[in-house]
C-alpha cells in the first residue's frame, strides 16, 4: 500500500511536469505514466484485498543496512572534496569494523589493498581521472 501510494504521487508529479511540454514530445511519456498509474492502482487494490501483499525482508531502519546506506551517500558526497586515495581506506576501515570484522590489522590492510587496487586499475591502467581531492596537487 505504501509502495503503491508513493508510486501514485511520483506519477502525478511527472504527469503534471509533462503538461508543460509540447504534446507531441510528451505523448509517449504520458502513455508510460498512465500505465504506471493504472498498475499502481491495481497493486493497491490487490494489496487491499490481501492478494500478493509484499512481505518485506528483514530490515531495521536503525540497523546496519541504514548505516550502510547513509555511509554510502556520505562517501559519494565526500569523494570529490576529500579524494579517493584518502577517503576510501578510512571509509573502508570504518565499514569493516561496523560490519563486525574484528581483526584491526586485517581491516587496515584490506582497506589499503582495495584502495590501491582500484586506484591502480582505474587511474593507471584505464586513465580514468579518479577524484584526488586534497591530493590533486601531489598525485598526477
Amino acid at each position: 500500500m505504501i509502495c503503491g501510494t508513493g508510486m501514485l504521487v511520483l506519477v502525478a508529479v511527472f504527469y503534471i511536469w509533462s503538461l508543460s511540454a509540447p504534446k507531441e514530445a510528451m505523448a509517449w511519456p504520458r502513455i508510460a505514466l498512465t500505465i504506471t498509474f493504472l498498475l499502481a492502482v491495481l497493486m493497491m487494490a490487490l494489496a487491499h484485498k490481501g492478494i500478493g501483499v509484499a512481505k518485506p525482508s528483514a530490515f531495521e531502519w536503525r540497523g546496519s543496512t541504514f548505516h550502510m546506506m547513509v555511509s554510502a551517500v556520505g562517501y559519494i558526497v565526500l569523494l570529490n572534496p576529500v579524494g579517493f586515495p584518502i577517503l576510501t581506506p578510512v571509509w573502508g576501515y570504518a565499514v569493516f569494523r561496523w560490519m563486525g570484522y574484528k581483526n584491526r590489522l586485517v581491516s587496515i590492510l584490506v582497506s589499503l589493498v582495495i584502495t590501491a587496487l582500484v586506484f591502480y586499475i582505474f587511474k593507471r591502467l584505464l586513465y580514468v581521472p579518479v577524484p584526488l581531492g586534497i591530493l590533486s596537487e601531489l598525485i598526477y
Partner: protein
Amino acid sequence: MFDLLMQGFMNALNPMTLLIMTAGTTMGIIIGATPGLTGTMGVALLVPLTFTMEPATGLLLLSGIYCGSYYGGSISAILLNCPGTPAAACTTFDGHPMAKRGESGRALGMSAIASSFGGLVSAVALIFIAPPLAKFALKFGPPEYFALAVFGLTVIASLSAKNMAKGLLAGAIGLSLATVGMDPIMGFPRFTAGFNDLLEGIQLIPALIGLFSMPQVFNMVSEQIDTMGIFKLEGKMLPSLKEVLGQGLNLIRSSIIGTVVGIMPGAGSSASTFIAYNEAMRFSKHPEKFGTGILDGVAAAESSNNAVSGGSLIPLLTLGIPGNSVSAVFLGGLLIHGLRPGPRLFVENAEIVYTLLAGFFIANILVFIVGMAIARVSSYILRVPYAILAPAIFVFSVIGSFAIRNNFVDVIIMILFGFIGWFLKRYNIPVAPIVLAIILGPMAESSARRSLLMSDGDLSIFVTRPISLVLLFMAVFSMAWPFIRKYLDKKKENDSKAKLA
C-alpha cells in the same frame, strides 16, 4: 560465413585475448561461487574495465565472466548447499548430498564437464542460428521494430510469473524512466530539470550497476552466510570416462533444453535447470535416486544452466532483445563499444561479432579448464567475509560508474538506482523488467513514431505488414501465456482429482 568464423577463431585465439578471456572466466567463476554475487552483477561491475580494450577483447572478457559465473554457482551449491546463483539451485539437490558423502571432488568435476558441454552446445547453436536470423531481421522496418519491442516488453509478463502485477509495474516504471532525456524525433528535453547531463537519457551502465550491485551490498550488511558448514574438496576430482559417457544422453538433452529456453526471452536459466532436472528424472532408469546425490542430477542441472548463456545471446545479438538480466547487462557492454545489437551488427561489425561467437565457444572450454583448476581453492573463496566484500563492491561500483563518462552525475544515477533496486527488492518487485523496459522503451517509442510518420498517423501500419502482425500476435500470446498456463494447470489438477475420486 565460414571465412568470418575462421577469422573470429584466429582473433579469439590470440594469446592476449586468450589471457583476458581466461581472466574473465576466472573472475566469473569466483563471482558465481560467492553466495550473494550473481553473474549479472559481475558483468555490470566489470563493464567499465572493458572501455580501453578493443571491442572484441572487451566483449570476450564479459563472455568469460558470463560463462564462468554459471559454473561458479555450482561450487557453493555443492560445497555449501547455498546456490551461488539462482540458476544453481537445482545443483544443490544432488551436488550437496555428494559432498556430504565425501564426493565433492567428483561432483565439482561433473559440474565442470557438464557446464562446459552445455555452454559448447549453446555456442554451436549461437554460431549457426544467429547469422541466418540476423539476415532475416534485415527486412525489418520501423513497424517491425516497434512490434519486436512490444514483444520484448511482453516478456516482462513471463519474467514475473510469480506476481505479474508487480512485474508489469516494474516494467512501466522502466518505460517511464526511459523517457528521461531528449525526445527521439523532435529533440525536446524531457524530465531533465535543466541538467544537460541528462539530455542523453539515463545512462544504462550506471543504472545497471546500481540496480544489480547496490541491493546486494545493502543486503550483505544484514546477512551473514555461515561459512562453518563448508565442505572441503574431497575424493577424486574427475568422474571416470565411463561415468561421463554414461551421462551422454542426459548432457545432450539438458543442453538442448537450456539452449531452447535461453532463446525464449524471459524464460531464464532457473526455469531451464528445473525442466532439465525433471526430464532427466523422467528418462532415468532410477528416478528414485534423484536427490540422494547422483551424477545425473548434477549433469542435468549444470549443462542446462550453462546452455542458457549461448541461447540468450541469439535474440540479443540478432534482434537487440535481451532474454534475461545478464544479457541485458551484456547489451550495455556492447553499447559502450558503439555496437548496437540487431541485424545490422552482423553486416557492419561482422569481424567483431564472429570473434565474439568464436570466443564464446572457447570461453566454454576455458570454463572446464579454469573450473577444474579453481575448484581446488574454491572452499577458500567461499570463506571471504561479507564485511570485506560489501565495501569492496561498493567502491568498485562508484569508480566504475564514474569511469564511464568521467562524470559524477553517473555516480549519482548509480546510487539512486541502487536505492530504487533495494526498495523494489524489499517489496518483492522484480528488477529485471525495469532493465528490459529501459532498453526497449526508446526502441519502441522511436520506431512507433517513425512508423506513424511513414503512414501519416495511420495505426493500421502495424497490422498490415506480415512480420509486424506476427510479432504482435506473439506479443499478445506472450501476455496471455501465464493465464493460459494457469488455466491448463488448474484443469490438469481438477482432472487428476476427478480421476482419483
